[in-house]
């Protein structure tokens, strides 16, 4: 018996116009435009607005990805199941073979025009696979072992990502699994208990590392970055330098900011990675407290609409996909913004939609497209 893969199809439906969540669309459009402005501001020293042009191209691709996500047949997509998982693992493994290294991390596969980052796709693939898994089961995950199974499924891609090394994205998978489980109906007490156990284990491992010399599958700099959040004196010239400069940048924005392209911290290169992971510091410096709050509000609204879509989804897989996307984006926003303002460790987690980076932008847009998809398809056709 041979099986063939049937690729998901999609179609335009007039319901879209009526039931599309325009809040989400509006937020995403605002974030798109903001990304163009901030990335251009952060890369003023590169001649010819190179990054602006490239981001412009990427935004149009991302809009197409968003539309695709909106109209794709989500059921078909989720039905790919193990193929998604296997493909995902293959891509992650391929990074080690043909990957491209930037600053000590091997995360990219060069596709000529732009570099493709499989770990970004892995996040969404994991969401979809978890939705598939939950859907395959008769009942919602209820026992400890149910939960353990969901987390265990995320472990292989997470390990591959951790080896790149990319601690942040590996943790995203963990967050995604938690979000999916929650919206799949996992008992809250059990989930909290599970999270507490994981957190306690993490702390114990770190303690063992320092006091008993336990070898962790983490680079020393990653451990330093985590600890420097609690101990700013640690590693003052390494990641903490970035964070300090970022905090100076954001703090110096005060109420109204210095104005676009007028931030001295940004313009004079005091913040490393200012157009990618530290883009929020540019926003904080140049748009001030008001601008930062506006951006966070934008994310807040966007994320709330994701929860809303999840809670109203017609199918279990729809709920889980929307919930997974919510947890993925929330983790990104909190960890990234938290990192720029010194309350989270420096990990390579970009800020959704705003950070420069094609893979993340397109995948996140597609993910939001799926949430929109879940939103509009809940409505029955009424004639």
């Amino acid at each position: 018996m041979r099986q063939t893969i049937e690729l998901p199809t999609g179609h335009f439906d007039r319901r879209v116009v009526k039931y599309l969540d325009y809040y989400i669309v509006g937020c995403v459009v605002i974030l798109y435009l903001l990304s163009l402005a901030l990335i251009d501001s952060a890369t003023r020293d590169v001649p010819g607005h190179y990054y602006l042009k490239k981001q412009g191209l990427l935004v149009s691709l991302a809009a197409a990805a968003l539309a695709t996500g909106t109209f794709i047949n989500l059921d078909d997509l989720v039905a790919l199941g193990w193929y998604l998982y296997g493909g995902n693992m293959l891509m992650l493994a391929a990074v080690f073979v043909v990957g491209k290294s930037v600053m000590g991390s091997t995360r990219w596969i060069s596709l000529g025009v732009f570099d493709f980052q499989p770990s970004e796709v892995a996040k969404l693939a994991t969401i979809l696979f978890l939705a598939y898994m939950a859907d395959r089961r008769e009942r919602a995950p209820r026992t400890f072992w149910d939960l353990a199974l969901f987390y265990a499924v995320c472990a292989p891609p997470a390990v591959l990502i951790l080896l790149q090394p990319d601690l942040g994205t590996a943790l995203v998978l963990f967050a995604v699994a938690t979000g999916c489980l929650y919206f799949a109906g996992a008992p809250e007490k059990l989930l909290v208990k599970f999270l507490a156990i994981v957190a306690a284990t993490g702390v114990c491992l770190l303690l063992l590392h320092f006091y008993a010399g336990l070898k962790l599958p983490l680079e020393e700099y990653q451990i330093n970055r985590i600890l420097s959040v609690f101990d700013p004196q640690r590693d003052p010239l390494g990641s903490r330098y970035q964070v300090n400069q970022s905090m100076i940048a954001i703090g110096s924005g005060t109420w109204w900011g210095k104005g676009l392209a007028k931030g001295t911290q940004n313009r004079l290169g005091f913040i490393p990675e200012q157009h990618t992971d530290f883009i929020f510091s540019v926003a904080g410096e140049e748009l001030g407290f008001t601008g930062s709050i506006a951006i966070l509000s934008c994310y807040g609204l966007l994320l709330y609409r994701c929860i809303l879509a999840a809670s109203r989804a017609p199918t279990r897989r729809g709920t889980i996909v929307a919930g997974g996307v919510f947890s993925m984006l929330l983790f990104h926003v909190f960890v990234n913004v938290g990192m720029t303002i010194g309350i989270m460790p420096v990990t390579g987690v970009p800020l959704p939609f705003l950070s420069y980076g094609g893979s993340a932008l397109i995948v996140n847009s597609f993910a939001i497209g799926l949430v929109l998809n879940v939103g509009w398809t809940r409505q029955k056709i009424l004639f």
Partner: protein
Amino acid sequence: MRRSVRTIYQDREEKTNLPARELDRRRKIAALVLFFLLAILVGQLFNLQVVKGEKFLELSKRNCLMITPIPAPRGEIVDRDGEVLVTSRPSYNVLYWYVNPSEAEQTLDRLAEILGMDPSVLQRRIRDYSGRYFEPILLVKDLSPEQCVKVAEHAPEIPGVFIDVQPVRYYPGGTLAAPVLGYVGEISSSQLKSERFKGYKIGDIVGQEGLESYYEPYLKGTPGGYQVEVDYRGRPTGNVGPGVPPEPGKTLVLEMSASLQRVCEEALTQVLQKKPKAKAGVAVVIDVKTGGILAMASVPGFDPNRLIQGISYRELTEVLSTGQWRFLNLAISGLYPPGSCFKVVTAVAALQEGAVTPGETFVCKGYHPMAPTLGCWQKQGHGRVNLEDALGQSCNVFFYELGRRLGTDTIAKYALQMGLGQKTGVDLFGEAMGTVPTSAWKEKAYSEGRVSEPELLLSEHMMVAMGQVFHMYTPLQMAIVAQTIANDGVRMKPRMVKAIVDADGRTVKEFPPEVAENMNLPAQVIDEVKRGMLKVTQKGGTAYWSFYDFPVPVAGKTGTAENPLGETHAWFIGFAPYESPEIAVAVLIDQGGGGSEVAAPVARAIFQEYFKVTPLRGR
């Protein structure tokens, strides 16, 4: 039979979602988590941007703003007629932004070619700056105008190279008055530590000697500065913030007359050429009424311009060891026995104390009857002489007798009143005090083991009176003696600087003449001494051959001071015109020989210049 995944999947029953109520509850909890996490972010943002915002704004400014000082032009020094003695000239330096090492090699090779230099010299300069590449590297100092043009012409081929103009101290007169004017140089580490140079920093150029040093606070001015924006590597971005213009240093207007100074130096140089054994020549010319120093020459001096341009250690040791250069201003720091010039002090003391009357005579047989070993320079003796004759002919025996009558301590009293053995208070650093011998001094010298007995011997009392033992004075002090007598016993405080004016020509500070001490001498005392000094330049006087044809009557006194180490020191002190003195002069030739032969002609040259007398004797 083919079955697609989709078919399998869709065959299955649609799994029921959670109940709507449960989903709604979970929505609320998730929203709560979302709100809670965002609230943490907002809280920290509020803390950073609003609560600590101003502090971070200040930090961000400090991050990117660097104060670049604009050096203040150093003040000039001009003579009494406005002739510029010290000024600043622009110096063109080649600087280089060392940014790209691969590009640098090519650029430096090209630059070396343009300037006709060895490229390795430039590369060494780059290496010297290792670790300081955020600042421009000084490659070549003080370009010639031709080199400047060449560098400018080839600018496109040498990216990163630029020419910077810096003021450099310039002494138009070269060696003229160099020991008095001093020179400038980088502040030394010991100077940096001293209270006087508070606020200075490494690399600052400060006055090192002479007037440059004494009037440093006025000459240096106040540097300005502007804020330069720098990037994270500390490199200027070209955005210049508000600046404060520098306040130029003040100009010193000297009492000195450059022409008189030049004549002094020329005359002294000629003497030194004629007398190869002579070590140095010093001349001081003082305005009798004001104490202003019209000339102060110490030859040999040095060329400050060569010091500024940078002189190698070898060259420097060479010019110093061969005696071509001398940094010391001997007029204030050189201590010499005054010889017979001191007789004018003894004469004043004796007349004032009543130890001798103007008409009183004494027979000089070539030695003093109470101390036959103490001879007169005129072996056969001067015969019967009064005070005036004794001064004019410099009779030792007459003054032995005065010394015997007065005693050393009484003479010392007058010596001190005339400014000897103490700092004159001239506006220069490094003044020596000298020694006026007294019985207390001898006792102290004995306790230190410098003399063989604690009391002054009779012969010593006698010799002190004619200036031969223990006395040590500077040429300036001796010039002050002449000035005091010329000014009827009113000693003035000598001054180099007449006024300090700012860049706009406004007088900032004036130095009015200051009386140091009024000896309150009766007219008959002073007139008697003056008459004696006039006889020096008249027929029979020791300086007659220098002044016999001089149209302005000159009063003076020659001196030939014994020097146990070598040739005698030649002295001349005097003033002119005799009737109403205008200037007082002291000339010393270190190991020059006899005062009348060597020192008096220099004084004549000075008077000749001052009174604009046409030379009559073909010199």
